[in-house]
């Protein structure tokens, strides 16, 4: 069940961050969903030696334990790999705030309890500025109320697909829902 988030945030405000950056293809040779967080943003996060890239936001003190990632426009474009939200979730993120999302990423994220929060360009810029000014900024994301807020910012509503929202809040399982429609599916197959 999706609980309200109150957390520090990692700021990675580039536009068009693609899923090859979120998790490079060479880490997709796995047969489980687990343990991908260590390779999240691998090629931006680590040097060739494997040592952490000191100036990369995920390596900053305080990044560990952050549940909110703030990114730019069109987050998650490119490949359909669900390994991207798996890696983000495994790291500990529960929401990504951006000014827009790629379609497949948004769908994949919602199926893993990772909430995509799309803000208007101006509101998004305000959040980036607030976080840049205060690395300890605590962001509140309330799915039930469909609002996001931070100190100095009154709650802003964000759009969420109502079905996805219900799945997250009530723990509705999408596959279970589809399986419950078996009669409709059989009738459709019969009438074709």
């Amino acid at each position, binding site marked *: 069940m999706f609980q309200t988030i109150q957390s520090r945030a990692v700021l990675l405000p*580039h*536009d*068009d961050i*693609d899923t*090859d*950056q979120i998790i*490079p*293809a*060479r880490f*997709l*040779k*796995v*047969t*489980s*969903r687990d343990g991908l967080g260590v390779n999240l943003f691998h*090629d931006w996060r680590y040097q*060739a030696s494997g040592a952490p890239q000191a100036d990369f936001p995920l390596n900053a003190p305080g990044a560990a334990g952050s549940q909110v990632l703030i990114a*730019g*426009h*069109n987050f998650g*474009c*490119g*490949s*359909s*790999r*669900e390994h991207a939200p798996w890696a983000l979730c495994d790291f500990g993120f529960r929401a990504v705030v951006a000014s*827009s999302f*790629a*379609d*497949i990423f948004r*769908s*994949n994220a919602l*199926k*893993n309890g990772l909430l995509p929060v799309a803000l208007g360009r101006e509101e998004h810029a305000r959040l980036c500025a607030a976080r840049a000014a205060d690395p300890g900024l605590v962001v509140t994301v309330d799915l039930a109320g469909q609002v996001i807020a931070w100190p100095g910012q009154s709650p802003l509503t964000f759009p969420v*697909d*109502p*079905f996805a929202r219900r799945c997250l809040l009530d723990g509705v399982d*999408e*596959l279970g*829902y*589809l*399986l419950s*429609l*078996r009669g*409709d*599916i059989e009738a*459709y*197959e019969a009438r074709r």
Partner: protein
Amino acid sequence: MSRTLARTLFDKIWDEHVVVEQGGEPAVLYIDLHLVHEVTSPQAFRGLRARGLTVRRPERTVATMDHSVPTAPGAVRGRIPVVDAQAEAQLRQLEVNCAEFGIELFALGSDQQGIVHVIGPELGFTQPATTIVCGDSHTSTHGAFGALAFGIGTSEVEHVLATQCLLQRRPATMLVQVDGQLPGGVTAKDIILALIAKIGVGGATGHVIEYAGEAIRALSMEQRMTVCNMSIEAGARAGLIAPDETTFAWLAGRARVPQGPAWEAAVARWRQLPSDPGAAYDTTVTIDGGGLEPMITYGTNPGMGIAITQPVPAPDGLADPRERAALDKALRYMDLEPGRPLLGHRVDVVFLGSCTNSRLGDLRQAASVVAGRHVAPGVRMLVVPGSQAIKRQAEAEGLDQVFRDAGAEWRESGCSMCIAMNGDQLQPGEYAVSTSNRNFEGRQGKGGRTFLASPLTAAAAAVTGRITDPRQL
């Protein structure tokens, strides 16, 4: 539903596949064909097992091995080991899953193995008026046949395996009208790179694109696949082209299409698919096909493209600070100087392959440039046919010899250097001209730098060792 009067191609396919749409809930969309590969399916099969579920329609499900297979000569007969034990385990898992759940598999070693988006059409699995999904964003390729085809994540792979259905919101529609006749040296790849440069990598988010116009009608099926393939690079959910005589002629007689009277009936049905006159689209974009030039990308996403004769854009020329920052970051990664022409720039590797440009027509085009020439000293050229069937056809025509004589590598079928998870990859700092679909940082190998272009432009780069306008050769 109020869309019964003038409907688009998309509307017709969508409406036909809605199983049920209850007030406020997403539509339950029936899926006619589910394509499966080794990388995005293991967790879905694992989920089925955990719930004790079976595959609802195994006969509507087809699997191949393509992403992590080696493409070195001999690889297909198992003489070359896959890149590592993890990839090996993933390939073996696909075999186990397909055997357990009764799914047809075109494994490494099969005469029909190849890239999932190449073999689907080639074997006639891909047909007009159908819905097609795969755990791969380039599933949009199949839209070239007038099929609604889109990429899905692994959770959705599991949903389709278990129920043959997906929960979907109806997307918006975008008409991309490409008028005129393409000039010599300009190809389908240049159309789609020009579109993405025009509308951006998020320009079609939330939309299904329909490509229409004189320049689209004149394309072969292979070229139409190239266009639809990269719809996702503009953010589109899918790309569609209405089926016509070109489509029917290409599909007729293929292994899995209807035969005899059933074929005639299918074609009659498919003739009803094109958008009705006056059908409305949410967005329209027009491109003057007659005014296009060969295109090439200079940056780190497919929207960062220019006509090959143009200089690299300068960040200083951009008003939007975010766009300026993005361009500056891309040019630093690519180590390119703003304002300088790309023509003449050094090239280390040329990759001819991928689900975008690995079909027979692509190989013929590249061979026409390479014939009688030699790959430039210091340049490595990989030629990777999209499937074993294409490889055999090309060999029957002697194309393999043209490439070999020129010093290029003639390899086995697979995704190869498009995704660089199979041993085929760039070294840090190397520049590649690639016929694939993504130039993201590290996409073709960590630290590698990609220029996306057509097979003609790639071949021209191979023989000159420089970025070269194919019209000048």
